[in-house]
């Protein structure tokens, strides 16, 4: 396939499998993502739908028994799948970085935070400690850490959650990677800090970094993303520009998600919910994985897995309702 140079990362047909004694599961099933340069792409979905697993697969951070079954992960045209660990080490941090949900545990408790940020520079660029220190302090300033020189010598427990997340972002961004994967970066933070962190991510994005933002919070996705993927049970169910997705959701699951968001203007006393819960990966339903919880389920939803249809340009949905070939209904 000819590489599209406008893409920072392109994931093609990625499947991740876990082999256990009970059987083989596929927490990520044939997922394709495109992250164009300079954009913020969102993945939204419930807990356990495979969002984080997809992110970790892109970073090459899966540990046995979890492994990539098939697919390609193209970073600027280079396939990362099957790359030896030493090559992956060179990619991680310098070309792709990741920040995590838990700023409380994401930093080494017995190491000064400055040294931890230093490490990224020193590993990738082999520069002397004093220069690395300068760069770290400059980066602390860039991510809005007050008194960067004093904070350099702080231990993680001396910082607040918001500051720790800023340190994590500094650590991820210090080598200017082309892509930042943010796995629920604000879930553990309170809303005012969340707003600050999201603003910071937007600034980083303006400075040229593409961002893959993973969240279960639709509000966060709506605020910062350009394009959104909706994931469910390891599959992409819907993908669209952010406005299209929020204005006219197509998939019954996406509609259910949007209806179950609380709103200040809401009048009904009871919040909508989606009946049922995420299926067990070992016992995925036949056909469409959402069919047991779907209110508009057709007869063939239970037998045939729907492909991705594109009812409007740039808006794809994995649902039989949008099959133009009505003869099959």
């Amino acid at each position: 396939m000819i590489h599209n140079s406008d893409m920072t990362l392109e994931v093609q047909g990625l499947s991740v499998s876990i082999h256990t004694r009970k059987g083989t599961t596929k927490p990520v099933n044939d997922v394709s993502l495109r992250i164009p340069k300079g954009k913020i792409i969102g993945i939204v979905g419930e807990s356990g739908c495979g969002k984080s697993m997809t992110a970790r697969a892109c970073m090459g951070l899966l540990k046995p028994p979890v492994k990539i079954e098939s697919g390609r992960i193209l970073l600027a045209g280079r396939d990362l799948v099957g790359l030896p660990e030493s090559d992956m080490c060179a990619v991680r941090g310098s070309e792709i970085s990741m920040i995590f949900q838990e700023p409380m545990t994401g930093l080494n408790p017995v190491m000064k935070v400055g040294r931890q940020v230093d490490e990224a520079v020193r590993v990738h660029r082999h520069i002397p400690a004093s220069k690395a220190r300068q760069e770290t302090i400059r980066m602390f300033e860039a991510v809005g850490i007050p008194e960067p020189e004093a904070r350099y010598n702080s231990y993680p427990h001396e910082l607040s959650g918001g500051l720790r997340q800023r340190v994590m972002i500094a650590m991820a961004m210090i080598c200017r990677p082309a892509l930042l994967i943010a796995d629920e970066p604000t879930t553990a933070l309170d809303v005012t800090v969340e707003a600050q962190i999201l603003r910071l991510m937007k600034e980083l994005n303006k400075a040229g970094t593409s961002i893959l933002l993973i969240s279960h919070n639709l509000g966060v996705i709506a605020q910062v993303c350009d394009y959104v993927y909706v994931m469910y049970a390891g599959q992409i169910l819907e993908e669209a520009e952010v406005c299209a997705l929020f204005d006219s959701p197509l998939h019954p699951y996406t509609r259910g998600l949007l209806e179950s968001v609380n709103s200040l203007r809401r009048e009904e006393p009871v919040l909508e919910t989606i009946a049922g819960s995420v299926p067990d990966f070992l016992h995925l339903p036949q056909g469409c994985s959402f069919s047991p919880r779907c209110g508009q389920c057709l007869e063939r939803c239970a037998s045939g897995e729907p492909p991705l249809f594109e009812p409007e340009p740039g808006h794809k949905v994995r649902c039989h309702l949008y099959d133009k070939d009505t003869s099959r209904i």
Partner: protein
Amino acid sequence: MNRDKLLQLMRENKVAVLSALVILLFVLAAVFAPFLTPYDPKEMDILHRLSGPDAAHLLGTDEGGRDILTRMLYGARVSLLAGVLPTLMSMLLGTALGLLSGFAGGVVDEIIMRIADVMLAFPSTLLAMLIVYTIGGGLTGVFLTLALVNWAGVARVVRAETLRLRGSVFVTAARSIGVPQTRIALRHILPGCIPTMIVLFTLGVPSAILTESSLSFLGLGIQPPATSWGLMINQGRQYLYTAPWCSFAPCVAIMLIVLAFNFLGDGLRDALDPHLESK
């Protein structure tokens, strides 16, 4: 750590400072033994055998008429060395193997842990006999035995710590910025094991002192007329009713040094743990 902080820590933990002083005192006493006593530790004086404490012999004399205080001072050399040196050796070996085992996993882990199982299941006295018969008795045999017996326990604990730390988010975060595995092991995981290792060390030293004494009792360790505290206790055992001071003094010495090491270990662990430091 700067000086003010150190002083503050010392003020807060007086027991640890006292313990360190006790240990220092014992070490100095062992080093300067010849200058502290007019007696020779090996010279017999049958006329004054088993005499109680008096002005000439502060702690009395043993069954050979030798001054007990003098023998304690010289015995401290062996006992302290037998406590510290083999424990350091087994810590070094155990930590290296435990770290490797926990980090490499798979076959390497399996092999190291099965060897450790064998070491733990093997009676240490039998191992000591094997070593003594192979390389000869005395200090070297005792030290080697103590080191070989204790590394397996250390390896186990360090491996468990490694596994715990390896699964933590900060290790994943370090990997996600491209830190290679060996650097993660040495810079992120090893420092996390240090508080545990200090505790292991302070438990290991007294247990090594005790093991040395039991080996010496069996004739596998220090050979008379040289002595160690353990050997002195055992030699005084027969006179417990008639001359209790023979065993009493070395017993108190062992108790003091064991307690001192334990308290010092607690103090050091508190001082090195940044979580506790903030309190």
